[in-house]
């Protein structure tokens, strides 16, 4: 048994349970309790493609320094699933704590791990006689035991439980009894050696809340004035639309008249979903859908059409690993290249890349502004990690700017112009004016079709006119470069190493920067927030002798784009890739960069 000092506010708890066993409430209560102790915390749910019965894991990272990325090694294990017990235990190193339901047959465990067995069935006996309830509530026993052993104030657990179940007194009573039973057992049965991890109260989480990216995106859409939503259920995007429907029903349906200022349609497939989005966008609605990789694959034809016909619409792609079946419940950033050029013909699309739940909220609203301003489908690439896990954040800020409805000529505006031509670039930014059906002025009428139209939207197959229109569309995407969110920059003056990442990699990147500094590597960091790339991205590449691009895909998709757009520096752009389906961890980033830099990697340098 190691006799080193316990890890205070800097460790990770891994809970191994069975999908559908009700462990989610228990894990969320644990998460909230630690947050209420004033200590930064993050939670990641690793779940199978299954509703009930298969193994599932939940990892809680406690980090006084505010690190929120996944870690490769855990310090506390809670064993609730007999199926995976042996493999779960085998992952635990020396000096770790293993808490197990004593009914589970455990493998041989080396003596330098602290094993703490809890007679959970026995503890549940006085709480309820209902066998089904026992199975659900037993999870609260481990909450109590973890809390008792690591020093979480029981009052914080009770408060967190109240926030989750306070409206259901019966459930509250049962769960509370189980939590207390866990605490009492831990108090009455001190472990054989000191507990290696402790939580001590801090003041680091004032004004911080926990929320997942999909809910944040839904809130963003609500405050962004969404009026039309069409969708086809697909993990991991379904919870975005489910959350949005709840919000719209509550805040956008008149309680007196029952009338709604929104329409939500569950479509027959993703092709219909985007068709409806484009139909509504054409008619002037702020329209959106949410899907994942298979969905945008089906939408490809309509994306191409939307680009050519210049119709606004917002598509959230909450990315997951490749095709189902297999890893549809794991995370990835592998749709980037496809999303950017999706469609037939010469097409590129604005792609927003939120890197936090705060940006999911912000882009959730602004995506409509960009779509209506740029008159084309806009993609927002989130991922399963960002979308479905709970992240600590400051409260979201109310949007400061009014909606940008783009270049729309209504009847009053049509009165003032000599003539209206749908596809004429009047002011040089590549973006034409549009009108909406229903406008009275005959001047505003036009006919929408795919590739064969002139500036006045009349049918033509003229080669000259076609090429001219394509050049204008290219100009429009140039306008997009500076209109879309600029990259976020953490410059270390004079650093020779420049790191580039995007999306949910941000948590691991922040931590990796500190690890690299400790290893003697001084690096600047740029987080890309949109495609097409902002000029500031090119400038960052130009001024750093060595650039490393960190991405969660196999094919180095952003790297390839940067090499194409910065050809003189192509040889200086290298990558660190992570594509296991698990969220990115800082050590992978750090070790990858140290290897490129020729700095020896020290084993166990993860802390």
């Amino acid at each position, binding site marked *: 048994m190691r006799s080193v000092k316990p890890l205070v506010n800097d460790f990770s708890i891994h809970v191994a349970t069975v999908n559908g066993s009700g462990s989610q409430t228990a894990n969320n209560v644990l998460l909230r309790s630690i947050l209420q102790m004033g200590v930064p915390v993050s939670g990641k749910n690793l779940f199978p493609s299954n509703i009930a019965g298969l193994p599932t894991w939940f990892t809680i990272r406690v980090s006084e320094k505010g690190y929120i990325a996944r870690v490769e090694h855990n310090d506390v294990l809670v064993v609730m699933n007999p199926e995976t017990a042996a493999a779960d235990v085998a992952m635990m190193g020396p000096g770790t704590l293993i808490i197990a339901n004593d009914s589970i047959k455990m493998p041989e465990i080396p003596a330098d791990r602290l094993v703490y067995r809890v007679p959970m069935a026995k503890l549940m006996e006085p709480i309820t006689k209902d066998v089904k309830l026992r199975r659900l509530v037993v999870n609260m026993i481990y909450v109590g035991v973890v809390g008792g052993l690591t020093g979480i104030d029981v009052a914080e657990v009770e408060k967190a439980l109240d926030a989750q179940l306070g409206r259901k007194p019966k459930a509250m009573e049962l769960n509370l009894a189980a939590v207390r039973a866990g605490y009492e057992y831990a108090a009455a049965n001190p472990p054989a050696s000191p507990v290696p991890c402790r939580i001590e109260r801090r003041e680091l989480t004032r004004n911080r809340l926990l929320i997942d990216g999909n809910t944040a995106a839904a809130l963003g859409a609500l405050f962004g004035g969404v009026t039309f939503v069409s969708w086809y259920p697909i993990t991991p995007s379904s919870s975005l639309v489910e959350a949005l429907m709840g919000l719209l029903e509550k805040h956008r349906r008149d309680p007196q008249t029952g009338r*709604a200022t929104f329409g939500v349609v569950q479509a027959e497939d993703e092709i219909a979903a985007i068709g409806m989005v484009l139909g509504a966008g054409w008619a002037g609605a702020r329209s959106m859908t949410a899907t994942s990789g298979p969905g945008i694959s089906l939408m490809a034809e309509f994306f191409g059409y939307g680009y050519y016909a210049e119709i606004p619409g917002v598509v959230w792609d909450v990315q997951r690993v490749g095709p189902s079946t297999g890893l549809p419940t794991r995370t990835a950033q592998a749709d980037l290249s496809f999303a950017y050029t999706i469609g037939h013909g010469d097409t590129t699309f604005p792609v927003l890349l939120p890197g936090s739940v705060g940006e999911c909220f912000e882009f959730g609203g602004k995506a409509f502004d960009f779509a209506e301003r740029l008159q084309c489908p806009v993609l927002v690439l989130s991922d399963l990690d960002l979308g479905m896990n709970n992240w600590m954040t400051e409260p979201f800020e109310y949007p400061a700017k009014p909606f940008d409805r783009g270049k729309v000529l209504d009847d009053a505006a049509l009165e003032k112009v000599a003539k209206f031509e749908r596809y004429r670039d009047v002011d040089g930014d590549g973006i034409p004016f549009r009108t909406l059906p229903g406008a009275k002025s005959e001047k505003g009428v036009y006919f929408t079709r795919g590739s064969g139209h002139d500036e006045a939207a009349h049918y033509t197959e003229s080669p000259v006119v076609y090429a001219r229109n394509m050049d204008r569309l290219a100009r429009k995407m140039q306008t997009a470069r500076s209109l879309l969110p600029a990259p976020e920059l953490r410059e270390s003056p004079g650093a020779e190493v420049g790191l580039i990442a995007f999306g949910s990699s941000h948590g691991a990147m922040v931590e990796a920067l500190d690890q690299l500094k400790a290893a003697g590597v001084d690096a600047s960091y740029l987080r890309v927030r949109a495609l097409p790339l902002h000029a500031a991205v090119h400038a960052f590449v130009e001024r750093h002798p060595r650039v490393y691009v960190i991405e969660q895909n196999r094919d180095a998709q952003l790297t390839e784009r940067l090499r194409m757009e910065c050809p003189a520096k192509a040889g200086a752009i290298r990558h660190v890739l992570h594509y296991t389906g698990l969220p990115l961890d800082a050590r992978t980033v750090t070790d990858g960069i140290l290897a490129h830099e020729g700095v020896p990697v020290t084993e166990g340098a993860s802390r």
Partner: protein
Amino acid sequence: MSATTTPPAGQPVNRIGLLKADYDGRKTTLCPGCGHNAITGGIIQAAWEAGLEPHRVAKLSGIGCSSKTPAYFLGRSHGFNAVHGRMPSIATGVSVANRGLTLIGVSGDGDSASIGMGQFVHLVRRNVPVVYIIENNGVYGLTKGQFSATADVGSTRKTGEANRLMPIDLCALAIELGCGFVARSFSGDQKQLRPLLKAAFSHPGTAILDVISPCVTFADHEGSSKSYAAVKEHDAPLHDIEYVPYFEDITVDYEPGTTRDVDMPDGSRVVLKKLEVDYDPTDARAAIDALHDARQEGKFVTGLIYANPKAVPFGEELRLVEEPLASLGEDDLRPPKSVLDGIMASYLEGSVSASGGGG
């Protein structure tokens, strides 16, 4: 709007002061003699007679010969020539975004019965308000005469090859899905087509009009079941049709017991004059029987096959506000700051949003 300009003397205007020419579109580019051109003419005439306000109409289509036609009528209305088989989803989005528009969707048998079958049936089951015209000729014209899914068993291509697969009857399908207005007609029978179109314009939900429209280039030969000659020979009208709009004070004199009326919610009336049999268009089972019998006999029943104008249209199903969603402003759409603050406070107090499994 242009209705305020004085029309040339002597030329008739409709109830909103427009000439028939005001409903014209661009010149057709389809083959001379194409049945679709006759349907285009029917739409122009019917829209003029019904007094549709052009700016309140949106013309939508998919891909195919038929889908080109919205460019050829109602030149003062917005048009949207979309992608193959996907007009129904476009129509659904447009309809929800702006309830005030009358949607005229034009599709073909390839567009609706093959590539777009999924969207067709789902549009019908949602009862999206659109006048959905299928210009049905049993062949793919633009790709030079391949069979479509509505080709009849035994009908031949120009090459002599016969179709052996069962045709899909879009009218029967629509009736099964609860469509409140299902009609079949023939592009060569304007007398029947126009009142059907006008009735469809006053129907509040999905109105399906399957119009047999011979392809002069690829399916007008001996052996084709949808040639002009074959359709004329096998056309079996269920009734004679008269449409009495709510804005005209017309009494139609028929002998008592010889007609059936279908009352439209806007106060218009469809008067069906009985032929050999007394056909009841409100009986869905009888309608399916009629379609089935006709197929057995190698005939096309035409007329108003099924009507239930009271079926709840999609906008009502969603309980939308009357004003088009597209015209709502920021005050209507962005909840005040207090709402966001309240939501954030609930999270600060301990709410944790639910994520979760599935696949």
